[in-house]
């Protein structure tokens, strides 16, 4: 046999595989020690992963930027807990997680305060430094940057339920038997836990008594049974536009803005005038905080990127990135605000944003969330 025999081929393959196996760890080690100047990995909510936001940064730095979007905070944080701390450079989650969970667990690291705090001066008045959610508990460290935010309670079709009625009746709309079968529920289970507590007349952000849990359970069963559908943002907007439903639980500027921008201004995010939340407030708002991951080999581009998104034009792009449209804290800067057209301001309900934020408490962690979520999942099964 001239040239290659079956045996020599297998032998060659074996040697090759062996060499690869031996070199594998070394290659990884080389990679680990190599400077990560040209790569950046971002774990975020949708929007930051869009080409509109990332492409200019890619061409500016020549770096490989990867962004993965997920749609709930605990999943992202558990990715870090499960060992992906070495993979990611930036993490973008809702307000309480950075200060209350990720910093104490050393999943993120503080930002250079002198470099980043001045950005807060240019933000909307409520973000003036020291901004609570961007600071560590002791107020010494700056742990993240604020950008997108918004009220998030429920959405109505104002042709069917007027804004005035919705704001005045508030969460009791979902206790009204006449509206059974006319509402949907957005599949955003952490927020649904908050909102079912509120519909039951209970403040979600505290430890709950067994009686309160029983009431939560009853409310969950009733509200889920009465829902016409449960689905994602696109399904909710579609059902509202077509007239399948008149309102949906859990939603706000974040979810309804694409439909409003598409020519349906009759769909509107509502923040009730009153509710069982702290100080009798009627709704909940969220503020995203983007932090640097406690990656032993953090990419220097992480800080670059945080500065990049503060730029008025980029901030405007972030606000109107694909998927959802949201107000950004950088709108406090006139140069940024002027970039928003009248239609864009209307899509994000700028006219009532300030009062709605004032009527909302800030998203926080529910101490007995797991228990409530189990009850809610069981309630969902009883729909059929």
């Amino acid at each position, binding site marked *: 046999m001239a040239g290659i025999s079956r045996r020599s081929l297998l032998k060659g393959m074996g040697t090759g595989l062996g060499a690869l196996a031996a070199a594998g760890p070394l290659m990884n080690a080389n990679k680990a020690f190599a400077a990560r100047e040209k790569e950046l990995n971002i774990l975020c909510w949708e929007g930051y992963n869009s080409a509109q936001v990332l492409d200019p940064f890619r061409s500016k730095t020549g770096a490989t930027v990867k962004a993965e979007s997920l749609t709930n905070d*605990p*999943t992202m944080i*558990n990715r870090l807990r499960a060992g992906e701390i070495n993979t990611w450079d930036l993490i973008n989650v809702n307000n309480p997680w950075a200060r209350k969970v990720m910093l104490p667990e050393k999943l993120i690291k503080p930002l250079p305060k002198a470099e980043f705090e001045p950005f807060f001066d240019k933000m909307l008045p409520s973000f003036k430094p020291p901004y609570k959610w961007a600071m560590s508990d002791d107020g010494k460290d700056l742990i993240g940057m604020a950008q997108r935010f918004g009220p998030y309670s429920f959405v109505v079709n104002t042709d069917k339920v007027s804004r005035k009625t919705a704001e005045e009746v508030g969460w009791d709309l979902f206790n009204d038997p006449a509206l059974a079968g006319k509402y*949907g529920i957005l599949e955003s289970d952490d927020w649904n836990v908050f909102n079912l507590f509120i519909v039951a007349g209970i403040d979600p952000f505290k430890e709950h008594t067994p009686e309160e849990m029983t009431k939560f359970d009853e409310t969950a069963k009733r509200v889920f049974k009465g829902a016409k559908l449960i689905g994602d943002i696109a399904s909710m907007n579609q059902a509202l536009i077509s007239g*399948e439903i008149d309102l949906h639980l859990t939603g706000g500027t974040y979810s309804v803005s694409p439909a409003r921008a598409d020519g349906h201004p009759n769909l509107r995010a509502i923040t009730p005038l009153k509710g069982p939340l702290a100080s009798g407030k009627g709704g909940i708002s969220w503020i995203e905080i983007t932090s640097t991951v406690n990656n032993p080999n953090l990419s220097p581009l992480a800080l670059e990127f945080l500065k990049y998104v503060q730029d008025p034009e980029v901030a405007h792009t972030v606000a109107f990135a694909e998927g959802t449209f949201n107000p950004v804290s950088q709108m406090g800067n006139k140069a940024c605000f002027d970039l928003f057209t009248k239609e864009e301001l209307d899509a994000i309900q700028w006219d009532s944003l300030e009062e709605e934020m004032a009527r909302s408490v800030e998203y926080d962690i529910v101490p007995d969330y*797991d228990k409530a979520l189990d009850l809610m*999942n069981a309630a969902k*099964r009883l*729909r059929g």
Partner: protein
Amino acid sequence: MADIALAHAPETAAELNRARALSAGARCALPVAILLGIGFLAPLVAILGYAFATPRSFDVFRSFTLENFATLFDPSNTVWLSFLWSCGFALATVAILAVVAYPIAYGLNVVFGRAAPLISVLFVFPLFVSENVRLYGWVLFYIKNGVLDGTLKWLGFSGGPEVLYTPGITLFGMVYTYLPFMLFPMTLGLALVPRDLVDAARDLGAGRLFIWREIELPLAMPGILIGMLLTFVLAIGATAEAKILGGQSIIVISHDIEIAFTYSQNWPLGSALAVIVTVFISGLTLFALSKLDLDRMLGRR
């Protein structure tokens, strides 16, 4: 050569080594075995590991508890409802598809003639489009003021039926999605029926029903049963239909597993549920296959 070396007792050291080495076949299968090991077996092992880990933790292979299974088998846990919906809908899908697909399969074999390949392609064609996209298409068709409702109103009728977001439409979606998986094994099964046999039976005076019951059905049975099994296994894991068309009017078992892995962040519970479903489906499949002697059915023995 290697096979011959293995045939007699090894004597020299070289022969002994050769005997210990893997056979040529095994060596050739090694790349596939490695690929399957990493891509198929490893995730299953991880799921199995997680199923016995402390609830709501990531202590895989570091902790051992039966708590997850105890939670699932707790009489107060309503997860059996999801399981029942999935099984019931999978069975209903199989039953409906068996009735719907049989005439088409028969047509493809006997009636459609030269048009049969084109008709087959038409049935395969939807598979080229993502399932979710097709299901959202059906939503637009059935939604209020959508294609059906809008057209009927335009024609002066009162509007279409309100079928969206119900368990019924979920079943419709499953029947629609899994039709090709029933149709093609069934078509192959019917192709196995020799026409001569049918003609002979007819010449001998057998009626159409008799021919169907005594000749066609038994001979096509391997294809029919494989189609049923394939459809059942796929349908029991279906989620998209219940979510997109059904608006989660029912929660299916794979959705429950998904919830455990996402919002609940209870990977061990989700894994335990996945293990139970996997054991159930594989048990059922093995049982069905043990009853299904393909060789005998194909007349090779």
